């Protein structure tokens, strides 16, 4: 599903080139649950952003569903990302001005889904996450765990093939974190491909494969 071939990411300044990633080769198959770990500044998030098409590699090839992303125009890439990838963030990143319902609905608006279909999809999602009663609340009226649930619901509403989670439990209490991780495990068992970045070994244990990145390169890659 995902194939990175010798990917570099660097920043050029006047006298030197600083590498953030160097020579990353990575393949992730459909249905995997991958955890990326590593110390701060090692390049975990950059790998995520490249996979999620929010950032471009400076060099190297990226194939997503066998399509060459590194050769694509921005609009095409955006189209691909919109239809196949869902994001979950550490800081939830819900839109403050929108209600729970509207936050979940937003990706559908950008996908151009019809109103009636939107309604039933969002209703289904609210039901599945047991948040029907909270649908008219604004993010600030929810606890962190609830906000992250909305974040996950929003990531899933577009029926993506890949879920990217950048430290999804970083801002949560441990019992809330456990709830989210169990949810991920369940999603994975239903066939969703998941890539998460985390510092927590406990969280990594929920996945099937752990990749360690150190200084912009893959240090270890274990399947368990």
């Amino acid at each position: 599903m995902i194939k990175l071939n010798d990917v570099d990411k660097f920043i050029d300044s006047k006298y030197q080139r600083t590498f953030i990633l160097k020579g990353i080769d990575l393949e992730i198959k459909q249905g995997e649950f991958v955890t990326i770990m590593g110390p701060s500044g090692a390049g975990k998030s950059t790998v995520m952003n490249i996979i999620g098409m929010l950032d471009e590699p400076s060099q190297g090839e990226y194939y997503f569903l066998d399509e060459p992303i590194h050769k694509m125009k921005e609009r095409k890439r955006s189209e691909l990302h919109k239809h196949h990838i869902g994001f979950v963030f550490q800081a939830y990143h819900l839109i403050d001005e929108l209600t729970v319902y509207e936050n979940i609905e937003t990706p559908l608006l950008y996908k151009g889904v019809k109103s009636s279909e939107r309604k039933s999809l969002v209703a289904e999602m609210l039901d599945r996450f047991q948040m029907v009663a909270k649908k008219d609340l604004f993010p600030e009226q929810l606890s962190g765990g609830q906000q992250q649930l909305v974040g996950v619901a929003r990531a899933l509403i577009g029926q993506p093939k890949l879920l990217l989670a950048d430290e999804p439990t970083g801002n949560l209490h441990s019992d809330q974190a456990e709830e989210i991780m169990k949810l991920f495990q369940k999603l994975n068992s239903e066939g969703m491909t998941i890539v998460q970045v985390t510092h927590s070994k406990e969280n990594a244990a929920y996945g099937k494969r752990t990749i360690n990145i150190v200084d912009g390169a893959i240090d270890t890659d274990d399947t368990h």
Partner: protein
Amino acid sequence: MIKNYLKIAVRSILKNPGYSGINIFGLTLGITCFLFIFLVVQYEVSFDRFHKDADLIYRVDNALKLSSGEYKYPNGPNGIGPSLLTEVPEVTGFTRLTGNGQQRIFEVNNELFQTEDAFYADSTFFEFFDFELTFGDRSEVLDEPLMVVLTENAALRFFGKKNAVGEILTLKGNQDARYLVSGIMENIPANSHMNFEMLLSLETLRNPNNPANLNSWNGGGAFTYIKLNSPKSADLVYKKILELKAKYVEESNSIRVNPSLIAMTDIHLKSNLRNEMQPNGSMDVVYVFSAIAIFILLIAAINYMNLATARSAKRAKEVGVRKVLGAYKNQLIGQFMGESVVLVIISAMLSIAVIGATINLMADFTGKALTIDMLFQLRVVMVLLIVVILIGFGSGIYPALFLSSFKPAVVLKGKLAPGMNSSGSLRKGLVIFQFSISIMLMIGTYTVYNQLTYMKNKSLGFQKKNMLVISNTRNAVTPQLDAFKNELMKDPSIERVTSSMSKPGGLRPIIFIKSETVIDDEGNLNLAGISTDFDYMSTFGIEILKGRDFDRSIPSDSTQSILLNEQAARELNIIEDPLGQIIQISQGQDWVNKKVIGLVADVNFEPLQRKTESTMYGPLFGSNLYIYVKVNPDRLAESIELAHATWEQFAPEIPFQYSFLEDDLNQLYQSEEQLSQVVIFFAILTVIIACLGLFGLASFATEQRIKEIGVRKVLGASVAQVLLLISKDFMVLIIVAFLIAAPAAYFLSDWWLQNFAFKVDLGAFTFILAGLGALVIALSTISYKTLNAARSNPVKALRID
């Protein structure tokens, strides 16, 4: 999708009441000012256009070409109209008004009324112009002698009813004349350059023995209006008028007849001659107002741009999330534009409400007849629509492009994109622009104010305080003038009494003279003549520099003595030795010798826009239309009472009418006064709007640097140091703005002051004051927010992270 944008727009407006408040308040203020000024300008350019043939109608002005310059009048010889109609095929019609500015007294059912607003009009008047007649037939109301058409207001005033047709109005005079009311016209629209309350039939003045008396090119003072077959014929007609002049005007009269044409629709804004029917407007004012309107709108729009981009840090996260969720850049641009359009629409609606509520106040304030229905003219609605679109999209586009270009991977990490802090260079430029305009307006306003104060307070060289002016209508008490004066002088509250034919600030006759001391005389040597009584100089306190004042005990002083002012003596080359010089003055066909008995100081009887005229004083005409009474200021009421009673005793048949000279003179500066008030008003608003923006920017700057402020305070910075830290950036902008504004303001002020012969100096003080004023205003605006931050407990600020 649009629904979603609107929802977000409305919620984001409601969620940030401070930010939205500043924006809506600023935009509302800006749009209100703009719209309001637009209405004023619309009103000013709408003058006389209600006549169907407005574009074809021209007025024939006339000029006297004299040694001292050209004196242009809106009225001229009677014969121009009739000759043009018969001899110039391009002229399809004419009509004349004559005999204005005289005090007339009418009697209605034994009651006396006074009016200055009466004209004699040609029988064609109502077919020529489109004033509505409520009673009477257009072609017949003025076609016989002794007919009169009243405006509705005049009918109410004289007869207490609108339909006064068939009533009799008696004009008092040596021989009373009974005029039949033949028609009633609607009141003259406020946007007409004409002003009268009745039209008497010009046929009345036709001399049965000499029917051509109304057709002379060598006399009369008729306002002549002609209608052309096409506006393009104006130049041709003008040439033909000059040919006709050569044919009809006597050689000796040539300097008095110099006709020219002015389009009727230009009269209100471009003609400001002596003897206009009413004070006209001015194109300069229209330009100044339009410029102010556009500036205010720009400043308000810039506020929005600045605040929206300064706030971008807060919106950055939303942009990032939306992009991650699949939004295209265009969709985001649409969303942010939507927000600015919603804000502008809200502001525009508020503006309409504000104008609706204050239109009467504003009409009083500007002295323009603005009405609420002007707001609903198609043109006004269109302009409002254009403003909404221009401001909505124009001020929305930059923030929209700026915001929508954020990279989600960057902003979602909480980093600030370049330019997101308060120091964006475009934003700096815009603040400089705003304050340049504000400072320019401040300097301009101060200049106008200064000049006005100067004109009001400048010593004019004569006494204007506590001077009662009694209108000696129809020379009612002139035959018993000495007795009248003596009667008044009996009372100790009356200090002095004199009389004259003219009034300071009013018209003075031009008198042609000959003098042996002027050699290259081209036959047009002249002086302004002030026909005076004894005690004139002492009552007005005019200084006698050489020789003596008029003396009752010297008989020749009542007939052939004159005084000259310095300007006149200089012009006649007799400034060194004026006494005893003989000057010949033209009286009718004759030249009469006058002897100079004294030299008096130059005084400014005319408004200070004009230079001091060369003037001669003396018993020139034996007509004394104004009686001046110098009264004791402590006993004003008694003096007026006394003057009234004395008047009743001497001229019971004529109403007592008085004014104070100082008020009359201040009237001369009314248009400047009104201009200055309006400019001051809008200058203040401009500064307020600019400060609103600055306030918003300072708030954001403070918010963004709250951590820095906290750290500095922990390290021991004082409140003043923190204040300086934030203010310094803005102060630099204000100083740059001042450097740009000062020269521009200098040129503009200098240009405006060219209108005045006597003017204030554009001192450095004005500029320093405006510069410091702007700094102080800006500083206090910034300090409000910054002080709070500087005073707050740093621990709070640092805990946020």
